[in-house]
């Protein structure tokens, strides 16, 4: 593929970078990135990946835009309330950059559809808000052998981690299974400072682009925790767990399953 003059202009600040150049920009243009969830984390990730010229962005979300989303889900605007998030997201992505093709999946990711959908992409970004879905994405990326950029936000705290299946620690290496539903505060109860979605979602997008370009050191075997109250990042070293039920030496999870019903469970950190 060759870039037009307009494209060379559009991506000139990328092309100027020795780590990207025309060659790297072509890698970006050929890349396929899947966003599971077109909400808080998915919004900033989608916009920056679109601006960067990612070839195909997949959006999975079964929801419609709600007024309470607009405090942080910047992919959606006031006139979009009531519209499917995937449609609203596609419109914004293509308005920003018509080079990007958008695949819409107006459904939930389930054990039934996950491998088929994920199999079509190079990198997966976790932007979901419940634990069963986070575990399902982790497991599906393991079976499909696709890199996953995990993210989570709650109140004033955020977390990011990159997971390269079979090479670096996975979500189940650390958290074996979803927490018991009864003990979990809901997102609505817990709240989140909206801009945190921007911080964590853009780090996820950065990690995805680095993987596409093969540049730098990915955020693997580390959890990056951000505390917005203190404006402090902390890196926690993690390792592959030989006892991991998914990617350990004697796995007990050998096929995809829905690990509990998706409920509105957000987090369980003792309230600060």
């Amino acid at each position, binding site marked *: 593929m060759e870039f037009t003059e307009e494209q060379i202009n559009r991506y000139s600040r990328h092309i100027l970078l020795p780590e990207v150049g025309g060659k790297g920009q072509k890698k970006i243009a050929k890349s396929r990135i899947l966003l599971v969830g077109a909400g*808080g984390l998915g919004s900033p990730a989608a916009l920056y990946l679109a601006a960067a010229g990612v070839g195909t962005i997949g959006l999975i979300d079964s929801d419609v835009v709600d007024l309470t989303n607009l405090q942080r889900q910047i992919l959606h605007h006031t006139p979009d309330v009531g519209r499917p998030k995937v449609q609203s997201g596609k419109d914004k992505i293509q308005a920003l950059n018509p080079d990007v093709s958008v695949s819409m999946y107006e459904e939930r990711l389930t054990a039934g559809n996950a491998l088929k959908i994920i199999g079509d992409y190079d990198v997966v970004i976790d932007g979901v808000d419940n634990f069963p879905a986070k575990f399902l994405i982790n497991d599906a990326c393991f079976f499909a052998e696709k890199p996953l950029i995990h993210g989570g936000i709650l109140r004033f705290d955020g*977390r990011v981690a990159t997971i390269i299946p079979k090479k670096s620690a996975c979500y189940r290496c650390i958290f074996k299974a979803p927490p018991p539903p009864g003990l979990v505060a809901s997102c609505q109860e817990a709240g989140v400072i909206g801009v945190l979605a921007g911080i964590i979602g853009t780090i996820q997008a950065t990690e995805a682009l680095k993987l596409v370009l093969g540049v730098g050191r990915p955020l693997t075997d580390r959890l990056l925790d951000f505390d917005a109250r203190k404006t402090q990042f902390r890196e926690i070293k993690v390792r592959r767990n030989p006892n991991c039920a998914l990617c350990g030496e004697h796995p007990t999870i050998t096929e995809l399953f829905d690990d509990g019903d998706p409920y509105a469970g957000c987090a369980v950190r003792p309230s600060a």
Partner: protein
Amino acid sequence: MQVKINGKPEEIQSGTVLDLLKAKNIEPQMVAVEVNDKVLERDHLATTHLNEGDQVEFLFYMGGGR
């Protein structure tokens, strides 16, 4: 004795990881515990004794994203 909990030095009573969780009022099901970069199996919380200088991480679930 002194250990590091989530990066901060803290003086604690000697005992097991489970004792420390109880002292901090943390429900064991709500947290993954790492000692010196290694995640503990939940059934080892009661049998793992902490030592001076250990680095303990309480990793809470962080689920939001929407």
